[in-house]
């Protein structure tokens, strides 16, 4: 901090670099540039659109994760993937059985189910004296078991036509799934910045005792975060079924830890109370571009998973080191 800025340009550069979105944005540009170098047409609008469509699903899972992590108390939601799988399997089933308005009603129904499971997690954490990591981990197997029991292992194959087309481009790089995701991000962002409970979430997450002294309803705030996470995850699963054109048991289990990684790369602190929805979006885009790039250069799946792990490790080391112990 002791060096003096030498010129106006230098100072501007430092301001940009100090922005919390600088590193994530830089990573996205680097990955895209690498793709453009290696593959013709990687940066074309249709390809960017297809990457953003895939990133939308990770984004939704990450938004769900960010809300729970923000609520603090070592909050983490390891049931995101299981609730997504449930949304993917049960959502289209309900949508087809609920008649003309089924497309919306089906989404609403799985979101209600998802938030119900979120509430159960919150209750177990609050009254069962169980850490969030464990509670939501067990909730994930409860949800998976519930999905298996309700579908009797035979998910209905029919997915409404409108849902099937959400991944296709409207005007490249826009697709319905991306528009819906951006709308949901905006909605959640507004809730966080404009409502009492949304703003309270940050204080509850960073300092429970201070929040209690301020008279904030801690139990309700935290439970709302878990319920919102469940609802958003279920919605993400519903869209996933349309995007991938089918649903399988546990199809989305990989999204759970991906959402945690995306949240952290996007600047959310796992200790709670600090993080943004937009950062989560950037984190999700980074992880999706990385996966997509490795897929596009045609590496065998083992090498792909390996490189993905190494890059993630490097990103974490470069970017999310803990505080030093020496005071």
């Amino acid at each position, binding site marked *: 901090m002791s060096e003096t800025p030498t010129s106006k340009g230098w100072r501007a550069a430092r301001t940009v670099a100090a922005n919390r979105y600088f590193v994530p944005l830089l990573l996205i540009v680097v990955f895209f540039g690498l793709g453009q170098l290696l593959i013709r047409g990687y940066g074309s609008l249709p390809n960017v659109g297809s990457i953003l469509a895939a990133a939308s699903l990770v984004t939704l899972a990450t938004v769900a994760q960010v809300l729970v992590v923000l609520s603090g108390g*070592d909050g983490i939601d390891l049931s995101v993937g299981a609730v997504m799988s449930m949304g993917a399997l049960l959502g289209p089933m309900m949508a087809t059985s609920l008649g003309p308005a089924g497309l919306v009603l089906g989404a609403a129904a799985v979101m209600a189910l998802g938030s119900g499971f979120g509430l159960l997690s919150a209750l177990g954490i609050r009254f069962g004296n169980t850490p969030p990591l*464990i509670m939501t981990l*067990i909730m994930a197997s409860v949800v998976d*078991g519930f999905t298996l029991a309700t579908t009797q292992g035979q998910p209905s194959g029919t997915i409404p036509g409108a849902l099937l087309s959400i991944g296709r481009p409207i005007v490249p790089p826009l697709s319905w799934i991306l528009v819906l995701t951006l709308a949901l991000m905006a909605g959640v962002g507004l809730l966080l910045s404009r409502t009492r409970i949304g703003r309270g979430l940050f204080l509850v997450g960073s300092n429970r005792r201070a929040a209690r002294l301020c008279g904030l309803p801690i139990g309700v705030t935290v439970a709302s975060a878990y319920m919102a996470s469940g609802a958003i995850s279920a919605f993400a699963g519903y869209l996933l079924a349309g995007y991938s054109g089918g649903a399988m048991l546990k199809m989305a289990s990989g999204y759970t830890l991906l959402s945690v990684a995306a949240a952290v790369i996007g600047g959310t602190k*796992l200790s709670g109370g600090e993080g943004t929805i937009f950062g989560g979006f950037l984190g999700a885009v980074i992880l999706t571009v990385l996966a997509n790039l490795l897929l596009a250069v045609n590496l065998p799946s*083992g090498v792909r998973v*390996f490189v993905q*792990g190494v890059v*993630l490790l490097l990103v974490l080391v470069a970017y999310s080191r*803990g505080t030093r112990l020496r005071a």
Partner: protein
Amino acid sequence: MRGLATATGGLLRSSSFPGFAMMLLLIGVNAVITTGFLRLSSLVSLLNLITPLVCLSMGLGIAVLSGGLDISIGAVVCLVNVVLVTLSGQGTPLAYAVLAAVGAALAVGALNGIVIGYLRVNALLVTFATQSVAGGLALWIMPLPSGQLSPGFVEGYSSGTFLALPVALLVVLALLGGWGVLRLTPYGTYLLAVGRDEQKAYVSGIDTRRVLLVSYVLSALCAGIGGVTFSANIGGGDPLAGLSMTLNALAAVVIGGISLSGGRGGVLGCIFGAVFFALITETVLGASVAAFYQDLAAALIILAGVLGMNLLQRATAIADGYRT
């Protein structure tokens, strides 16, 4: 009499007691509902089956005691399995193949320990990344399930005995003995100190970085040994089969009474937790639950077990005036 009372009190207050009680409960239930459950041969085959999970949860227990987490252990099992099967398929003597496989596990553990301990990155995220590293390597070496282990190795594990004790039991006892020795060394004390409060441990002059490094190497060592027994169980190579064990081990650790915030509990409890966890499947099968409801029933039993255990622990802590 007083000695007995103190001993009983100590047992009741021990962090692994709830796990022990729940394990006994499920053993009791199974003895009633599953025919032939208590026969020696079925007990030994059950022991062979659950030993990999027991090993993994003991190692994970050490990582959790240090205040962290290790979710790369399932991928380590995959890597160990693949290295072991590939090398022995190429005619490498079995002992060298086992050593190389466990060496690969130790390398993953050292990577975890260096990044978590020295570079100070969150353990959950680091081990998530190294899970891809180790799992990717396993897939790279062996893209599809293939290969077979020598029948001698498989037989030696499943029905071999030494001093009339089954091999699987000896593996568990050896790990438990190792833990007992470790607890007596300075490292054992440092481990719990770092787990309870890393900052305080640091200012007390403990080399917290090295303690963390050792913890993750030990976790990977246990996962490596678990991977060898797992390979003996499945008898061949499979680059993905071990992955699902991570979360099962985590559940076992929690049921075993190790606090996720670190520094509290002991590895003995992990054994009870792992046995409890493994017995759930037996119970659900024994109670002839309809096929599609088995997973839900098993999940609900785990939920009830963990909630019950946590409430029990809180109750004893309150009765004890929070004396720990």
